[in-house]
């Protein structure tokens, strides 16, 4: 398992050598001694689980270009991690989780947060406190237990008889996926990121009704947008499309009245490209307060959102991205494409194999092959 990285490198999160570029325009291979198991990136750090160790790179303890290796102990296998500006949360095989503070370079185990509310004490079995996934944002972090309970660390979230299977955090909003494929959101809704058809905020998880009847398998959250994949391989997005990260091109063109989409198809390839380029440049952003289906080339396997970009892995093994590319997060030079309002194909130079997973965060994208 090898890791490729592209995007923002302003804190030295991908390459610590002096004189390395702040913008990584094309995926570069990052070398680790052991196979890469998990990865998470934020604006200031890149955190990687390689073998038994956790490696954090970027801005640590008020220094740029730092590479730190953290050990959780010999009997602890790190499984999954999540980074934001100030911290990285790590889960491990024993079911406990750790909080690594990048500002102080201090690691502490998160304990007891699973039993801080009396109602949960009735079932203090070990399983309840087994944390399988963590997800962090600078406004509050989530943890998911094996039995499907969610904690806004440290308190449990009151969700009666709902078994949660996945969690995601935006800048200031949260997304849950339940075992029957329903999606719940809460937090700041001022930019349509909750998907309830309005711009109101919600204090508690609320079912996204527009997705009812659709069994959702994957969820992901960007800074102000979300992307989910249904059991039939369809992609839905909603929220604030500042830079086309919704993959939906809804803008009404004032001038190009003659150029209907049908006409576009008939244009020669290069003309089509230049027309798209022009539309990318002129894009003004949209807000979609309801989930909307997105046209993709073929069925979607999985999706990952960075702050302002979205990358999908399709069932045919190809990888496509849309949204902001000012720092190369779509794996192409920003000079060629500052933003892409439609999905464009991503490839890794000099690599023909299969991309197994994609993990976006901040202004960066990671590909595990």
């Amino acid at each position: 398992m090898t890791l490729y990285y592209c995007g923002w490198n302003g804190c030295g999160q991908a390459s610590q050598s002096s004189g390395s570029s702040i913008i990584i325009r094309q995926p570069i291979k990052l070398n680790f001694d052991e196979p890469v198991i998990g990865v998470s990136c934020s604006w200031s750090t890149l955190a990687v689980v390689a073998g038994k160790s956790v490696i954090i790179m970027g801005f640590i303890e008020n220094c740029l270009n730092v590479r730190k290796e953290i050990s959780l102990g010999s009997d602890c296998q790190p499984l999954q991690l999540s980074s934001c500006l100030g911290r990285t949360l790590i889960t491990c095989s024993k079911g406990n989780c750790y909080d690594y503070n990048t500002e102080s370079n201090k690691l502490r185990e998160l304990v007891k947060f699973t039993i801080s509310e009396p109602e949960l004490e009735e079932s203090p079995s070990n399983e309840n406190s087994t944390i399988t996934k963590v997800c962090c944002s600078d406004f509050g972090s989530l943890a998911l237990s094996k039995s499907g309970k969610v904690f806004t660390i440290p308190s449990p979230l009151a969700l009666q008889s709902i078994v949660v299977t996945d969690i995601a955090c935006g800048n200031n909003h949260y997304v849950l996926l339940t075992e029957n494929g329903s999606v719940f959101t809460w937090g700041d809704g001022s930019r349509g990121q909750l998907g309830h058809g309005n711009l109101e905020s919600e204090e508690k998880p609320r079912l996204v009704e527009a997705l009812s009847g659709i069994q959702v398998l994957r969820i992901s959250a960007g800074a102000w947008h979300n992307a989910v994949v249904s059991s039939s391989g369809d992609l839905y997005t909603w929220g604030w499309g500042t830079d086309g990260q919704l993959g939906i091109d809804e803008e009404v063109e004032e001038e190009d009245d003659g150029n209907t989409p049908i006409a576009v198809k008939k244009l020669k390839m290069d003309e089509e490209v230049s027309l798209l380029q022009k539309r990318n440049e002129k894009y003004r952003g949209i807000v979609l307060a309801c989930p909307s289906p997105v046209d993709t080339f073929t069925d979607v396997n999985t999706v990952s959102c960075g702050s302002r970009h979205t990358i999908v892995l399709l069932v045919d093994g190809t990888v496509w991205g849309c949204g902001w590319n000012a720092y190369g997060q779509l794996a192409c030079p920003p000079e060629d494409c500052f933003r892409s309002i439609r999905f464009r194909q991503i490839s890794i130079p000099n690599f023909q194999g299969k991309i197994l997973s994609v993990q976006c965060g901040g202004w960066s994208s990671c590909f595990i092959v």
Partner: protein
Amino acid sequence: MSVVWEHPATLLHWIDLEVMAEDKVDQDAVAERLEASVLESPKFKRDFQTSQSDQLSKTAEGETVSKKALLGDRTSLVLPKLWKLLPDNVCHTFPQLDIVPKPILKLMRNAESIIVRLKEVTSSEEKKLKHEAEQALTSIQGVLDQTWEQLNTGHWRDVPIVHRHVFSIASLIKILCLLYSQAGGEEMLLRLALKAADMGLLLGAPLPPPNECLDLTIAASLLSTTLAQLVEQSGSEQDPIILDEKQTSQFITGGLSGSPIKELVCPSIERFCTDHFQPKLPVKIKGCMTHWPAYKRWNDIGYLQRVAGARTVPIELGSHYAHSDYSQKLMTIADFIEQHVVGGKLGYLAQHQLFEQVPELRADICEPEYCCLTDDSIHIDEPANDGTDINAWFGPAGTVSPLHFDPKHNLLAQVVGTKRVLLFPPEVSSSLYPHSDRLLSNTARVDPEKPDYDQFPLFKNIAPPIEFSGGSDSGILFGGNKDKLLKLLVI
């Protein structure tokens, strides 16, 4: 083009306006992402091509020439003045810096220390200088982009002011980085630097003492003046724009017409107060603007181009602000004039505090003494007290503001062109069918020019409004918080 003074009726209403204004900035913020808006402009493209060909000719002439042109002549002159705006150690001394995420602070301080080093650099190190300035430019852009994300997380009014301070400081650092970077021709760099100053003015906030000298208004004025001199010198100035007479006089009137408004010639404050302000009766005041420098100067669009052409402002696009096709875009005044005012495409520089942004234009207008009246106690204040907002409205023929009311009293000064305004008394508010959602609750759904009587039957029975229709040199008072008004504008 017109100027509107909004005056507080009561404190409560003043707060209302704050909220409105803040929601509006959210939309400015949406538009902010359009870094490309300067880059895509036809003017910019021309400049860029020119600057590239400049560089080619330089290399052809040999090294001596390029060495001489380390920094442009004009840039060398303006740089010391810009340096004076950057307080020593500002990145370590602004208040509440502990709230700023550490990596942002770190990158900002790094960029600052790089440009401080550049200030002292000798010509032998010029290659290093150029490279470092470009690196610092990318980092500081990262700081601005990340701070922009901070500014847009949660509701605008809940965002700590310190992020806006960071935006202001980073904008000034970006300006300095740009000018040292030589990433393009001198004119292009000045344009980009001016855009950075305007973005800082739109999204940042002035710093409190001891860093109050970091004033982006001054930075923008310096850059704007320098740019104007450079353009004049190189002769690449745009052709003068003469407005077609028809454009300014053409009026599309429809729907209902009102009874003409009462006119007075320079009434005394006392008379204005007792006859109009207190009873809230609209009036058109003639002859009180002839002494304004703007009265002559603004007739020449070339003047606006010269003084403010390169400044970036928010433009409202679409039929009007309550219409579904509404959006905002940031563009330079020069492009706005070219594409909209002359080009005739709908677009409105509306409700923008242009005069705070461009003090050169503020100097062309005088605050009418009628502005000194306030509601709570009718006494004569010092003019230009804090409660008065001065907004500019500038657009092509056919620009419309839907029927609405403002939280403050309005004094509208029509400087160039003509405008039609319909005023309804506050009692008929419910017959005008206000929008139900909070943001548009001050706006009517009825279009008085094309009233839909099936949908809005009550509108049929109301008395005709007061109509103001006029060109330059007329002021008008609106009882802002209660009267409904419609503005229909021809520049």
